[in-house]
């Protein structure tokens, strides 16, 4: 039933809310402190990466084969942004929590929830502010990339943007978790503990259960650190992007459910269960999406183009049974060199570990251990190789197609660059912190319109 006209609310404007969130995040010390702390962290990682890359390049200049292994993605981008990842994991939650926690502690939230905005709008505005904070927190890493280019280094735009996109998604996910934690916690300290339990707990998951089959593998895949691996390998996976987006939206939805203070806890619990179920369903669907793009310049995640074309035309089902324990290095090689590439290109493939392959120790004396069985359309063959040079001919034989002639050229040349990175340290330990201090001062100045008023007065 409509309420009396006397207090019908008009649609509230979003701009003041966004401006307020922006000033809140820029006006506090947390963001600027994090930025200053990140300068030496990212700077030293960049310096080390450049130094190591320079040393390797000296040898690479003597041999084209060695040079072809010098990729800025692995040598510069991943280690430099890796430092940024550590900071986002450990420090960024404090900045993101502040967006909501400060209002909760000061009582401002009690005013905010009375304003004509939906809870979802409030959380969305806060998430937007968190994203702005992430952009700020990436300034040291961005500046490292600029310095690399000034040094004469090479960057391949698709793989660089893909990696940055991965870090953006990771930042969004951490921010959403932080908002959820701030929403359910009474104090910012509790929220920080909850968020760090997620982020640092992910590391523990990676260390303890990664590489184990079954349920443990599933649990390990939930680790936040897994989010970046695919991007670091130069793949843009639609399923992964959908999964991270769903997880971030799920946490934001939970934060929305827990934000309004005037709702009974039991109603909040019901809303939370609905959110979790919806997110779980969408996540389940996202895991079924296998579409991914190899954005690397050296196409390391793909077979040669001619092989890709032939393999893509194989319509029959390929069943691969691996007689290896998951922690066996050969399994990792096979996965990286062959299986992952096959899964990307073949329309109908299923890969499974042979039953009972739980660990290397339990397979001692097993004659079949180490075999990989390929079954295509009723015909099968076995190989112990982990190299595509042997596996692809085997598959062509099973599919009864002729092996394509290798295309000339197109080999990745590599980008050796002999350089020392000491100059960069001046920027990261002097120039950039100074710029950040100036930025902090600028954020605390009086608004321009107010200064004008003062002048006129």
């Amino acid at each position, binding site marked *: *039933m409509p*309420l*009396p*006209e*006397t*207090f*019908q*609310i*008009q649609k*509230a*404007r979003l*701009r*003041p*809310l966004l*401006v*307020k969130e922006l*000033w*809140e995040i820029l*006006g*506090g010390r947390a963001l600027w402190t994090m930025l200053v702390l990140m300068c030496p962290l990212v700077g030293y990682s960049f310096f080390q990466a450049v130094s190591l890359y320079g040393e390797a390049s000296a040898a690479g200049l003597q041999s084209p084969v060695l040079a072809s292994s010098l990729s800025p993605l692995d040598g510069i981008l991943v280690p430099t942004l890796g430092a940024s990842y550590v900071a986002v994991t450990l420090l960024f939650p404090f900045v993101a929590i502040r967006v909501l926690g*400060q*209002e909760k502690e*000061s*009582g*401002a939230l*009690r*005013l905010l*929830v*009375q*304003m*004509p905005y939906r809870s979802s709008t409030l959380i969305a505005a806060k998430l937007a502010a968190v994203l702005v904070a992430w952009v700020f927190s990436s300034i040291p890493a961005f500046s490292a990339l600029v310095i690399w280019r000034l040094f004469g280094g090479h960057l391949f735009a698709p793989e660089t943007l893909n990696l940055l996109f991965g870090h953006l998604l990771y930042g969004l996910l951490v921010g959403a978790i932080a908002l959820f934690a701030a929403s359910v916690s009474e104090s910012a300290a509790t929220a920080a503990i909850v968020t760090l339990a997620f982020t640092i707990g992910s590391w523990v998951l990676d260390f303890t259960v990664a590489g184990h089959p079954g349920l443990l593998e599933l649990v390990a895949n939930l680790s936040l650190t897994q989010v970046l691996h695919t991007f670091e390998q130069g793949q843009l996976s639609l399923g992964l992007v959908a999964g991270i987006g769903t997880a971030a939206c799920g946490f934001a939805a939970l934060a929305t459910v827990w934000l309004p*203070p*005037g*709702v*009974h806890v039991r109603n909040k619990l019901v809303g939370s269960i609905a959110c979790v179920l919806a997110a779980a369903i969408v996540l389940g669907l996202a895991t079924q999406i296998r579409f991914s793009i190899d954005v690397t310049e050296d196409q390391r995640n793909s077979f040669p183009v001619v092989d890709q074309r032939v393999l893509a035309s194989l319509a029959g089902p390929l069943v691969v049974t691996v007689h290896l324990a998951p922690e066996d290095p050969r399994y990792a090689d096979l996965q990286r060199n062959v299986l992952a590439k096959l899964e990307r290109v073949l329309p109908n493939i299923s890969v499974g570990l042979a039953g009972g392959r739980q660990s290397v120790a339990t397979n001692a004396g097993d004659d079949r251990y180490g075999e990989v069985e390929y079954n295509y359309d009723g015909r099968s063959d076995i190989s112990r190789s982990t190299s595509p040079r042997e596996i692809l001919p085997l598959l062509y034989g099973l599919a009864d197609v002729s092996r394509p002639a290798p295309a000339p050229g197109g080999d990745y040349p590599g980008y050796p660059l002999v350089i020392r990175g000491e100059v960069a340290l001046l920027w990261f330990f002097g120039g950039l912190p100074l710029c950040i201090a100036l930025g902090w001062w600028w954020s605390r100045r*009086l*608004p321009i319109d*107010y200064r004008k008023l*003062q002048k006129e007065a």
Partner: protein
Amino acid sequence: MDRAFQLVPPGPPIQRNAQLPAESGRASGQADDQVLLRVDSINKRYADEVVLADVAFDIQAGEIIGIIGPNGAGKTTLLEVLAGTVPAESSDVQWLGRPLPSSRRREAIFYLPDGVRPYQDQLVTRVLSFFADVYRRPADEVTSTIEAVRLTPVLSKRVNSLSKGYGRRLMLALGLLAPHPLLLMDEPFDGFDLRQTSEIVGVLRKEVSKGRTLALAIHQLLDAERVCDRFILLADGHVRGVGTLNDLREGTGLTSGSLEDIFLALT
């Protein structure tokens, strides 16, 4: 005027000091068309402790109603439940005769809590601008509000550097910028000296003359007597009496008693 809310349309002059309230807390002969907010029943408990028990009263359009009671009487909780910022076991409230669920209270009611110092790292002017922008208040209204609560000297200061008095003035300004027909304020005079209290009383009176209704939870009975048209006496979560000072005098038989005497007699 571009406003996020429309105030109650001007009607016939509101007859204050209605009849002596019934035991339930509602004036027996009160004309329904004057009633802005009718509280049929509010019950609230924290764990096993009953904080509000079957609280019922009316708030008439254009009045200043004072909620008075000793510490722990449930004044703040009552305001929070009314505003919909705290859930209650039951909270049956009608707005101009129509049910007003908790989720929609913020469309009609704005609540200024006690002890809140919002956005401490921000400049006062920025906080005021935020509220003015959200509620689309024109610049002249913002200026007159700032002047009315005498905030001009601290506009360029940060909220965390304000004195207690200026902090209260800022909160009051935010409440005045919110265009809701009914404004609930918890301890609005806390932190003000006698002269400042007089000033603020004037500001509130002026606001009511514009057609707004105020409900104030007040600890100091002298302040309450000075500013309020009617009173709700609350003790142990129960309404002990509702009405004007004269109504309460008649009800208690203290014909020349002050609010303090009545308060002591009823609580």
